[in-house]
């Protein structure tokens, strides 16, 4: 067990170092700086009465940048190893293909979490500058968003096992930013649909990744919304574990017998 943990740790560390080498996290830092500068421009108009707007803008930008980085990182961890032929020395060690997949997944999640937390700190500085208050739900927002980023990474890695990195990231972007719209369309159309379509709607709703469930931004940005009940956080955790397992299983089914 401890040997396996060591393997995962080494593989995940490799993904983080690779991300640093490719300056992905530097890009995040620059984006953060841009956020601060943009906030400065907003301050030019005066922020009295705009606090909620600024907070909402903050959580939206934070979520979007973190999701973009999570997709870009995770959709290329596997294809890059194959393309650069660094996969062969890895697999020549006592590492199974499943270990490799899980290690890369953990690494991708870590990179997206580090980026998200870096952006969060910069956003917090910007918000404090404008005297925007924080409520305890902000912590729940961070926790839920981190779980959501893990699901984003799992979906992107699964796609990258079946298609090119460009196609995988494109499809992941579509799902990450449009799944809530698809779910909205399903809920609006359900009442008027026939029985067969209703069955299809339910199936699609069950399969599609429910990224919007992990976004507490609308509660965190507005006033006087209470904390989310613990059973909901528990549900989100279980959903994350189940969905990530399902995605990793899919990726493994393809990857375990793939000719390298």
């Amino acid at each position, binding site marked *: 067990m401890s040997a396996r943990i060591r393997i995962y740790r080494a593989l995940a560390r490799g993904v983080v170092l690779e991300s640093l080498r490719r300056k992905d996290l530097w890009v995040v830092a620059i984006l953060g700086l841009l956020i601060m500068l943009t906030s400065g421009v907003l301050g030019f108009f*005066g922020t009295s009465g705009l606090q909620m707007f600024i907070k909402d803008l903050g959580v939206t930008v934070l979520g979007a940048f973190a999701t973009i980085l999570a997709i870009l990182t995770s959709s290329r961890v596997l294809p890059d190893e194959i393309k650069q032929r660094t996969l062969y020395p890895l697999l020549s060690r006592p590492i199974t293909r499943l270990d490799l997949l899980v290690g890369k997944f953990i690494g991708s999640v870590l990179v997206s979490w580090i980026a998200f937390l870096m952006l969060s700190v910069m956003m917090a500085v910007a918000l404090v500058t404008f005297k925007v208050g924080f409520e305890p739900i902000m912590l729940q927002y961070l926790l839920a968003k981190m779980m959501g980023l893990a699901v984003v990474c799992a979906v992107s890695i699964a796609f990258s096992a079946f298609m090119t990195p460009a196609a995988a990231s494109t499809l992941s972007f579509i799902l990450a930013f449009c799944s809530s719209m698809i779910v909205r369309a399903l809920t609006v159309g359900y009442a008027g649909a026939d029985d067969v379509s209703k069955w299809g709607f339910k199936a699609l709703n069950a399969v599609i990744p429910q990224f919007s469930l992990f976004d507490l931004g609308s509660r965190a940005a507005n006033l006087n919304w209470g904390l989310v009940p613990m059973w909901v956080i528990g549900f989100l955790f279980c959903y994350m574990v189940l969905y990530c397992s399902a995605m990793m299983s899919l990726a493994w089914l393809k990857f375990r017998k793939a000719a390298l």
Partner: protein
Amino acid sequence: MKPAIWCGVAMVGALGIGMSTDGLRPIVNPKVRVSGLDIHDSAVSGSLLGQFRTSISAYLWVQSDLYLHNGVQMRPLTEAEIKSGHEVMNSANDGHEKLHNDVVTTVIPPKERDFRGIFGDVERATSAWKNMKNHTHNDPSQSLPLFRLMTWLDPSFIDGWTTGAMVIARDHSGLATGKAVDFLKEGLAENPESIDILTSIAYLELTRRKNINAAVSYLEKARGLGWAHRASMPVNEREAFENTYRWLALCYRDLGRRQDVITVCQEGLSLFSDDKVLPRLLDGAMKGEKGPGKASDDAKALRDDEEEEHEH
């Protein structure tokens, strides 16, 4: 070779249909353009800047609506939902002018209308959601900076000016009315041909300041502009144009200008034949009735009726 021939035939056919179809011309290329939008077509930089400004101001518009509802996303009901008797999440009657059309519901449906089971329950718990039947609004004055920002970014955004003014004038004080009228006049300077802004100023002059003559001057201007642009007009402007005739007829009735009431009603009915108010006013003028109330009260009542009509 064959595909090339077919492509050529299809292109010539499409060109022929396009050139012979003139039904879309007044919409795509109206004779009278909304002046604020001209800049978008006049130069590449103007067009790009226009797109940016329009997008940002539309985003701010959505944000101001979200702010009023404390983050709860609302949407208009679909035709099918209205027909099926879907529950309307209207706003509570708090004695103020309504800030939005009330034929709305929440984007995230309530439990009894949501087929998603636990996913729906969790989304209602993680998002800003509550039952919005007879909902109240956050203090709208806090959203004023957003209206100021959106009209600064896109001065041709008429809804920003008119709704912003109603938000400013919400506390019914003389000072607030003055500020709202000033805000609208600023909008009118940017959009001198906007009927919606003119009727909004007239509404405030009539219902708040009880200044019928000032209201008439704005309404007459709106009437003239509307008549000139009657062939092609956006929906909001058309609704404002219809109100112009109603309120103008009410003002003339109070001023005792019977012949003007008749002229205005007849002209209005020639454009809005299904209007329910103008025939009543015309009938009253024909019989020489003075009317049941003051124009200011009647105009307010008409606006309330119109909003209720929207709800049903």
